[in-house]
C-alpha cells in the first residue's frame, strides 16, 4: 500500500462527508444548536460573576469541556450510523479500504470538533469572562484533545453503528475512554488559564497525547474487524 494512495482515499472519504454534510447540515445543526443552547444557559445562569474567585479556575475549565464534549458527541457519534441508516455502508465497505474509511471519518470528526471549538471557545471566554493566560498552550491542548476525542468517538461510532439503541451504547462505551481524556483536558485548561508557560500544561498534554496514541493504535487494528464483521 502506498501512503499517497491511502491518503488520497482518506481525503476522498473526508471530502464526500463534508460535501454531504454541507448539503444536509444534520450534524452541524445538531452540534451547533446544542452548543449554543448549553452555552447560553450556562452564561445566563452562572455568568462571569456568580462563581467565587477561588472556584473559577476549576469550574470554568470543567464547564468549557462539558459544553464542548456533549455538544460534539451529538454529531461525532453519527459518522457511521448515518451510513447504515442510508444503506450506503455496504457500498462503502466493498469500495474503500478500511484504513481509508477510518481515517476519512476521523478527519471529518476532527473538522467538526474544530468548527465547534472556533464557535464556542471565544464565545465562552467572552460570556464567562474567562481569561486564558497561556493562549499557545491552550491551543496545543485543544488540538491534542480534539484528536483524542475524535479518535475515541470515531471508533466507538463504528462499533455501535449496527446496534439497535446506538445512542445509549455510545454513551456507555464512551465513559471509560473519554473520562480520562476529559479529566486531563480540564486540568490542562486550568493550568493554561493560570500560566503562559508551556511547561504548565506539559503533564496534561503528555497524558492526552498518550491516550490519543493508544486509542489510534487500538483503532487501527480494531476497525477493520469492526467494519467487516
Amino acid at each position, binding site marked *: *500500500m502506498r501512503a499517497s494512495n491511502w491518503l*488520497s482515499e482518506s481525503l*476522498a472519504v473526508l471530502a*464526500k462527508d463534508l460535501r*454531504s454534510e454541507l448539503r444536509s447540515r444534520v450534524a452541524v445543526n445538531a452540534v451547533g444548536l446544542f452548543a449554543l443552547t448549553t452555552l447560553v444557559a450556562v452564561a445566563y445562569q452562572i455568568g462571569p460573576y456568580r462563581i467565587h474567585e477561588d472556584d473559577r479556575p476549576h469550574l470554568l475549565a470543567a464547564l468549557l469541556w462539558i459544553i464542548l464534549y456533549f455538544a460534539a458527541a451529538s454529531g461525532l457519534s453519527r459518522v457511521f450510523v448515518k451510513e447504515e441508516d442510508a444503506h450506503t455502508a455496504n*457500498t462503502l465497505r*466493498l469500495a474503500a*479500504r478500511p484504513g481509508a474509511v477510518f481515517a476519512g471519518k476521523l478527519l471529518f470528526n476532527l473538522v467538526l470538533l474544530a468548527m465547534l471549538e472556533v464557535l464556542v471557545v471565544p464565545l465562552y471566554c467572552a460570556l464567562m469572562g474567562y481569561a486564558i493566560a497561556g493562549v499557545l498552550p491552550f491551543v496545543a491542548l485543544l488540538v491534542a484533545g480534539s484528536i483524542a476525542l475524535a479518535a475515541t468517538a470515531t471508533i466507538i461510532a463504528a462499533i455501535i453503528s449496527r446496534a439497535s439503541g446506538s445512542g445509549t451504547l455510545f454513551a456507555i462505551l464512551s465513559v471509560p475512554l473519554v473520562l480520562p481524556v476529559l479529566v486531563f483536558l480540564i486540568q490542562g485548561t486550568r493550568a493554561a488559564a493560570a500560566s503562559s508557560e508551556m511547561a504548565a500544561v506539559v503533564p496534561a498534554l503528555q497524558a492526552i497525547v498518550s491516550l490519543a496514541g493508544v486509542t489510534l493504535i487500538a483503532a487501527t487494528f480494531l476497525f477493520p474487524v469492526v467494519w467487516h*464483521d
Partner: protein
Amino acid sequence: MGGRPPGVATRSTPPATCHESTSADSDNGSGRPEVFAILRAVKAVRVEFAGIAKRYGNRSVLTGLSGALVPGTVTAVVGPNGSGKSTFLNILSGLIRPTRGEVRYRGDGADLERQHWLALLGVAAPDMAVYEELTAIENLRFFARVRGLTHDDGHLAALLEDVGLARRELARPVATYSSGMKQRVKLAQAIVHEPAVLLLDEPSSNLDEAGHRMVANLVARFRLRAAVAVATNDPREMVWGDARIELAL
C-alpha cells in the same frame, strides 16, 4: 438443514475465455498501482464456493451450495423469494459470513487476498445505496477515488449516459431522482472500475423496458471479460445466464 434440498450449481458453458483488461492499461499510473498490477497479471478471476450454508437462528437459508463463477460466463441465481439469492451474493461479496463453507477468489490458479479481490469486484444490490446528497457524477467520482482511480468527469458522464442517465440530470442530487434513476446510478457505481467479477442482485428492479435493455447490454458487455452473477426472479433476466444456480425454499 430443514429437509431442504441443497442448491445445485451447474455450469453449462465451456471453460472461460480470458480477456486481458484493457481498462487496467488505460488507467495505468492514475490509481492504485498494486491493483492494476494484479489486474494485468491475473487476467481473469474465478470465484469458487464450496459447501456454503447459512442459518438465521433456526432457519436454514442455504445448505451446502458448491460451484464456481467462471470468467466469460453469466450465472443466473434463481429461486423464489426467501430462498437465499441475496444472501448468497452477499456471502460471495464478503458482506455476510457463511455459517459453513468457504468462498475463494482465484486468479491464475492462485488464491487472491481479500483486499485484492475486493478491488476487482463490482456489486449492485437493493440494499446497497449511493449517496443521496451527492450528484450522480460526484458519487461516481467518489467511488472511483476510493478505489484509487482518477477518472475525469467526461468519462464518468459518458458512463452515466451508458446506463441511461441524461447529461442534464447529472447535476442534481441523487435524492431528487426517481427510483429507476437511482438504480441506474447504482449500476454505474458497480462498473466504474471495470470489475473482473460483477454481482447483480435484481438489476432491473425499478427500471422500465429501456432500462431492462440497458442492463441486458451491460451484462452482455461484461460477459466478454468478467465472471457475472445475476440474482433474479424475472424470467427475462434468467435467460441471460449461461449457467444457473437454482435455490429452493
